[in-house]
């Protein structure tokens, strides 16, 4: 168990215009569960593979504990990895799969057997130890891959989308199991996923990447409540945050037919920038339905009833959307949802609006 440090780590693939991972700085505490999340091609898997030693580091450094591992081969890093496709050894039994690393390390047969049995008991694999991987279900193979990692008691676990080959129900179940197992073992874990729900539910902290650049790192709550930029705001949360271009007025901005007041700090920041418009973000649950005349009118196009929640999708009346196709999403009373085609009036709860610069995409909200 160890801390992990990325120090301006950069990976430039030969023949590609920009780095896959660009000056990544990240400090991961001992025992922390850190999730790297982002859309495909954002460099999250490359970052993980750099940490594993499977990808070269062109610039910067990576440290595990006090040891610099930047140019060490994978076998000298004492870390275990769980792959998306599990990468089990097909010609070995489950027990041999799990004990392979220990065998190479020269551990005695008795010791290997004891440790494999312990790990198998934790993962409920006891009865499958003699089977070959092809005789296991997808979920069981996933657990063997986990077992292969935990049996070694390594400095850190690296997981590269380990749940994406499971069906939806098993994925949710296994998600909880992995998080619980990590808390129990207390091993530093770096977990890569493209699924922001997985990131939010599993991570102690979440690091959001885009185009090889770290966008923001923080607790799930931080990312949700205070996204640093438009990308993080739109990426974290489901349904996604509504992002609307608004024209600035003297004391705020114009949203539909209504003015939206803005805090003085935000106005000052926008004025310094010389901006005439800004991006206003608000989460679907940050609005409340009000009487006509007290909020901006919203024309409902589709209503989705999920039981506990209802979401209304629609357009702002009298507010030209840039692409014209993206519907805004608002959460409405699950027991009294509006009808399709109805125009309702909404107000953003005070302090729950997010203002981003149109030019830089950065957050401007003062608090």
């Amino acid at each position: 168990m160890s801390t992990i440090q990325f120090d301006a780590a950069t990976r430039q693939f030969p023949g590609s215009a920009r780095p896959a991972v660009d000056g990544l700085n990240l400090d991961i505490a001992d025992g922390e569960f850190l999730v790297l999340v982002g859309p495909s091609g954002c460099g999250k898997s490359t970052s993980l593979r750099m940490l594993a030693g499977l990808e070269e580091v062109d610039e910067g450094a990576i440290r595990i504990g006090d040891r610099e591992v930047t140019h060490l081969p994978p076998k000298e890093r004492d870390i275990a990895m769980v792959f998306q496709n599990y990468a089990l050894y097909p010609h070995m039994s489950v027990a041999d799969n799990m004990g392979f690393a220990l065998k190479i390390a020269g551990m005695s047969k008795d010791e290997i057997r004891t440790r494999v049995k312990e790990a198998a008991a934790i993962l409920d694999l006891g009865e499958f130890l003699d089977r070959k991987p092809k005789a296991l279900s997808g979920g069981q193979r996933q657990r063997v891959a986990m077992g292969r990692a935990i049996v070694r008691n390594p400095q850190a676990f690296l997981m590269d989308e380990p749940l994406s080959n499971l069906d939806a129900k098993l994925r949710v179940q296994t998600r909880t199991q992995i998080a619980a197992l990590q808390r129990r073992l207390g091993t530093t874990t770096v977990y890569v996923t493209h699924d922001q729900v997985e990131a939010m539910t599993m991570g102690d902290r979440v690091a959001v990447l885009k185009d090889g650049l770290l966008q923001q790192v923080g607790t799930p709550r931080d990312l949700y409540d205070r996204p640093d930029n438009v990308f993080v705001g739109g990426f974290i949360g489901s349904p996604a945050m509504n992002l609307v271009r608004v024209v600035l007025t003297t004391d705020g901005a114009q949203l539909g037919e209504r003015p939206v007041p803005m805090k003085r700090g935000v106005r000052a920041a926008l004025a310094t920038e010389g901006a005439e418009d800004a991006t206003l973000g608000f989460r679907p649950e940050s609005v409340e339905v009000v009487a006509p005349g007290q909020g901006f009118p919203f024309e409902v196009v589709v209503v989705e009833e999920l039981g506990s929640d209802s979401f209304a999708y629609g357009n702002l009346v009298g507010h030209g959307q840039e692409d014209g196709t993206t519907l805004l999403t608002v959460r409405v009373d699950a027991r009294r949802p509006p009808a399709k085609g109805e125009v309702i009036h909404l107000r953003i709860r005070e302090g729950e609006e997010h203002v981003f610069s149109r030019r830089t995409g950065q957050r401007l909200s003062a608090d």
Partner: protein
Amino acid sequence: MSTATSPRPPAGPADAGSAPAPRTLRRRHTPSLQRQSPLVGLAAWMAGLFFAAPVLWMVLTSFHSETDAATNPPSVAAALTLDGYRSFFGATSGASPWPPLINSATASLVSTALVILLALPAAYALSIKPVRKWTDVLFFLLSTKMLPIVAGLLPLYLFALNTGSLDTIWVLIVLYTSMNLPIAVWMMRSFLAEVPAEMLEAAALDGAGLVTILRRIVAPVAMPGIAATALICFIFSWNELLLAQTLTGVVAGTAPVFLTGFVTSQGLFLAQVCAAATVISLPVLAAGFAAQDKLVQGLSLGAVK
């Protein structure tokens, strides 16, 4: 066994009784091989027999006497005898077939082992961790097979003469190894290309070095491919005649060279030649059976997903 893809005839006698069963249910059960039409099976057997007939005729003739073997039309139902085998094993001529058989076995087995040992790392460097310009390397390997061996015969002879390796088993081992190596690299490369890269990365993270990965992961997973390659190399070496006849003579002659010795100026002793050919074919057949269970194993089944 008949092919699985051939279409079922509209009203096969086998499923006449199950006609009232719902259509979807029948669909689910019919694709099994046992339910194929007997006609397809018959055709497959006919084709198989057609191709095996010359071999079967050779085996049959080897058990006939020379007089029965020489008749035209062939006397199929003639009395069986082991005379052909007796004279092959030296009962009449006094020439023992064992030295050439042992020579053949040595040259084939040693060269095959060398080929596999050299081709596995080469294929690794051309598929799993491709070196720079690996396509050029592959083309070079292929290009070595473009010159007919007979065109290189004189230089090879002079080489053997000047190195003092004429009529030794070593010259054959070296030549068979270099003759089969390009084919082996090409075959193994395509087998290794199917080994999932993550599996090797997992082994590297588990602490395995290159040699351990090759020996404990790549070799076992690619075993069907290695078996197929080894079988091909063994067959090619065992059956090779041109080089063996030119470069060996008295001491290091191989089984095919020995076999040609039966075609004498005094006439063809057909039964004896068939007996010799049968015996010399047996090792190849045995190698095929030995490799069979390795060949059918699914490559890397259950490794990923």
